[in-house]
């Protein structure tokens, strides 16, 4: 049995996904000490976890240093990396939407869109034929319309509470997002049996 390296996003998704692996019968320690560790070895299952920033997971997988990984669909859409998308794990489900101050129309010439997802936003507005100017921000996106930097924001929405608290309303639903199991194309071939077995077990559990 070949060793499998799994890139996991740090934080809440890690815990959910880790629990999922336990639920489908992997022999993993119930408690993992993951305060500062970036790598966890599970010799009994020949599995190694690497803990990465969520948006970096597809990078590790594309380069093949991790065989498989768990990444948000938002990251996959934004980065368009060469990885196989194997399974929708249906965890951390949310969606990407555009939002802005209530009862506002967009600037007619080239409305400004603030977002963490410049590619997703650009593709969306291109598709609906809207000419826009994309402003890339790295956080606190909600600030942009409040302070007049942008007409709309394109961001991830899970409960809508953050929008509400900042006096913003949702305008357009762009796409649904959840965590996906992704694989490196070479690993998918060279470690086919192990990866398929994992997918089958998870698939049964998810559905």
């Amino acid at each position, binding site marked *: 049995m070949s060793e499998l390296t799994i890139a996991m996003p740090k934080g809440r998704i890690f815990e959910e996904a880790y629990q999922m692996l336990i639920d489908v019968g992997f022999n993993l320690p119930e408690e993992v000490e993951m305060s500062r560790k970036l790598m966890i070895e599970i010799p009994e299952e020949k599995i190694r976890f690497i803990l990465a920033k969520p948006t970096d997971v597809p990078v590790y997988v594309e380069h093949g240093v991790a065989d498989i990984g768990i990444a948000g669909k938002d990251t996959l859409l934004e980065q368009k990396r060469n990885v196989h*998308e*194997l399974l929708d794990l249906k965890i951390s489900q949310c969606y990407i939407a555009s939002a802005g101050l209530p009862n506002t129309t967009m600037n007619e010439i080239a409305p400004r869109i603030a977002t963490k997802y410049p590619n997703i936003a650009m593709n969306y507005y291109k598709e609906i034929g809207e000419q826009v100017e994309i402003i890339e921000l790295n956080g606190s996106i909600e600030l942009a319309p409040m302070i007049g930097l942008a007409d709309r924001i394109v961001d991830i929405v899970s409960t809508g509470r953050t929008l509400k608290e900042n006096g913003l309303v949702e305008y357009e639903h762009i796409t649904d997002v959840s965590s996906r199991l992704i694989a490196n194309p*070479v690993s998918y071939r060279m470690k*086919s049996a192990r990866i398929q077995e994992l997918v089958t077990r998870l698939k049964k559990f998810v559905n």
Partner: protein
Amino acid sequence: MSLKMFEKPLGMRDTFPVIYEKIETVRQTGRKFLRARGYDFIETPSLEYFDTVGKASAIYDASLFKLVDSQGNTLVLRPDMTTPIARVATSKLLKEKIPLRLAYFANVFRAQQTEGGRPAEFGQMGIEVIGDSTVFADAEVIITAIHLIQSFGIESFKITIGHAGVLNCILKDYTESDEQASTLRKLLVDRNYVGFEEAVETFHLPKTKSDALLQFINEATTFASIEEIEKYVRKNDALEYMQQLIELIKAADLSQYVALDFTLSSHMNYYTGMLFEVFAEGSGFELGNGGRYDGLLHHFGSEVGATGFGIRIDRLLEVLPSKETEDETVAVIFNELEYMKALQIANNLREEGKRVTLQSKNGLINEEAFTKQFGQVVYVSQEDLA
């Protein structure tokens, strides 16, 4: 110019001596191997017309390096070798000798959008068999690919084979419109299996059809034998072709290197028949690919079949087992007055098959650092004469 002196265009790389030697070894091994199998090497120009080669190439338009010649024609740096070879073959060579067996080792150019460090120019080695439409030509291509990879000492690799005809048949039979079939095909090109399942659900197909598609996508990359695809496909030529191909590979006793993947699909519609990808342990990226591309020859106005493969040299170097082939190096360091004698000594050593560097002592700034690079150092000085 505002550019810094040492800057290179995005994706362009220098090849330093150590890597150069490795590439040269690969070239020689590959050349010897392919010539022994009756392939003739060919070279085509780096620049081609966009209208001829650029448009027909399987490489995305956004990856092409384009420039304009003095007459205003758009040119491209060749993004692959298959298209130029198809051009040459249909314009000239095909009249002479059919089927043609051609090989190449050349650099191709693909502009990078993603990350700065990825190469935009890289070597490719491959073959094309032009003018043979039989399954034996496809088998020869796959078998040659396997043996070529083995000849580099690589043992852990896999070739996955699919067939555009089989996939098209399945997509056509289980969907209700061409549009649905092409949506699914596009998702397979991106290897988005999740998207495939989602799309199937949104089509609201009759249950038998959607169940078949979902089951197919579940199994299609893990078939242990060709028989397992049969339940999805009407009896057709493509399926029979694949059965024969698998038989031929089995006859060559190479089945262990081959896996089936009927989701394999290309965004170019001239890949009409079988197609395959090559993966090797040690690199996260595909080593190479190949397939039958009769449609490309038709594009150039010829009705003959063509099939071939190419492997990327930069990725091959990553998976190459490291081999220490140290040459015997000698430095001959001389005083000005002893030049004649130094020449003589150097020549004698070279005749013994050694790599000899002739260096005047006065030209050295740091003699110790210089001589450290050599296996042996010979001083030619006055004292030696005495």
